[in-house]
């Protein structure tokens, strides 16, 4: 409990420092919000246009797809706030030797490298994403609002899966000298999770819920809202989150063994 409080306090301090740093460049702050609005528009327009020509994509109609996009936007905004900047800069930190400073601190190095910098402009995106999500739910006829409670479990599990995959991929920077483009593959993998899993063939769907679990990021929470509850699937997602956290920690320790300081 004491350790948990210590890390919560640490995160609070780092979040505050990030907010002050982000506000220093106000135009950049606003542009980052606008950037994501463009991304939201691109996703929404794509599906709105496609639904002009079809009634269903995968198993869902337009109203259901809007809810799915709402979940995607909310999860993505949370990921952006908490993790994106740390994991995107990972390779740079290793190459420039900044990792040395983090390793020398009296705190867990995985925690420090994963949560040191919050992307506070994305709070604006979270507000917009939530607004779209609520709007999409209101468009659903006879929506059972109690189903939203599932998200308390499933969205954090989705974020854990997202973190685990991204962190593992970013950690390869400790092993290989240059892995920037390997990081770009991540964005393609991430795109797989930004589409409803029902558009994929069964073997790929299975693969995306187990070995490469981008399917649990948004598809599973959206299913919890739109389809009858699949308790086995939800239980699997919770177990998977635990396994993934354990494995990332193991991989991080393994990667650190091959780290030779860059700043010395």
């Amino acid at each position, binding site marked *: 409990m004491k350790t948990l409080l210590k890390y919560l306090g640490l995160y609070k301090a780092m979040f505050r420092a990030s907010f002050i740093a982000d506000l220093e460049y106000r135009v950049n702050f606003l542009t980052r919000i606008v950037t994501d609005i463009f991304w939201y528009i691109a996703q929404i327009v794509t599906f709105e246009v496609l639904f002009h020509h079809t009634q269903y994509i995968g198993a869902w109609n337009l109203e259901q797809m809007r809810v799915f996009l709402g979940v995607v936007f909310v999860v993505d905004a949370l990921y952006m706030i908490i993790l994106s900047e740390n994991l995107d800069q990972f390779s740079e930190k290793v190459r420039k030797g900044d990792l040395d400073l983090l390793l020398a601190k009296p705190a867990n190095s995985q925690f420090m490298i994963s949560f040191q910098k919050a992307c506070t402009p994305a709070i604006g995106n979270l507000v917009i994403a939530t607004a779209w999500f609520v709007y999409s739910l209101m468009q659903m006829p006879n929506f059972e609002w109690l189903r939203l409670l599932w998200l308390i479990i499933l969205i954090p599990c989705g974020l854990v899966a997202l973190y685990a995959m991204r962190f593992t991929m970013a950690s390869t920077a400790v092993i290989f000298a240059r892995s920037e483009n*390997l990081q*770009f593959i991540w964005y393609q993998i991430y795109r797989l999770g930004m589409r409803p899993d029902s558009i994929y063939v069964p073997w790929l769907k299975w693969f995306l819920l187990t070995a490469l679990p981008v399917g649990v990021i948004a598809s599973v929470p959206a299913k919890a809202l739109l389809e009858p509850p699949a308790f086995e699937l939800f239980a699997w997602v919770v177990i998977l989150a635990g396994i993934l956290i354990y494995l990332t920690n193991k991989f991080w320790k393994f990667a650190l063994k091959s780290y030779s300081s860059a700043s010395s």
Partner: protein
Amino acid sequence: MKKSFAVFWKRNLAFAKLAIVSNLEYRLNYFVDAVLQPTLTTGIEILLWFAVFRGAATTEIAGFSREYYLAYALWGAFFARICTSWMYEFRMIQEIDSGSINAILTRPMTYYEYYFSQLMGYKFITTIVSMVIPLLAIAIFNLPTKFERLPLAFALEFYYLILVHSISFVIAASAFYLNKIYSFTGAKNLALWLLTGELFPLDLMPEPIRSLVIALPFSSGVYVPVGYLTGRLEIATVWQSFLSVTAGIVIVNAFGAILWKKGLKAYTGTGA
């Protein structure tokens, strides 16, 4: 006059070669960038089109069969890869931001041409390497492509790159006035992602948005060359696109020249 053009050509060729050599330095990185990434993108888009046709329970959408859309998704990902620019834009911003631009300003060339030729060299080698994949896929799956139209499609694509670089130049020049503008690049690329037609053929949009978006020069990045290549569009649209890109180049460069000149006057370089 003749001599000065020869000198200009020679030095720009050298910049282009420099870009090719430096990009091929890390071959694995380059392979991921030029081949693996667009292949994965194509795979995802193709799966989406399969799902759309399954859901629509029809053989045609807007008068074209599934094969046309698969061919569009396949070529679209690779043309999009060519017409997207962020690497050199980032470098330009960084140089203005840090002051290291001073080293380039003292050389007998313009900043615009230095990066333009590098961009062209990089895109030239990327085109050659990455086009192997769609060519193979088209041949194996027998998807509709009019290969005799490839030269004109590429001509339009590379002409469009002048506009792409000009926009990058304008964004980079903004670094004279504002600190930390890296997010401009992301915002611009995301806006163009939709406007080029990478996500879906622009003619699927409802009117009047469709006519407006197609008339913009950005449709020359993906929609027009790929539509022409796959038989969706005819040559008249390509000529119109050349005109609209020309107008875009003139407007953006006029704006860029003003920003650059004013910015340079006010600039106090620190990168000595």
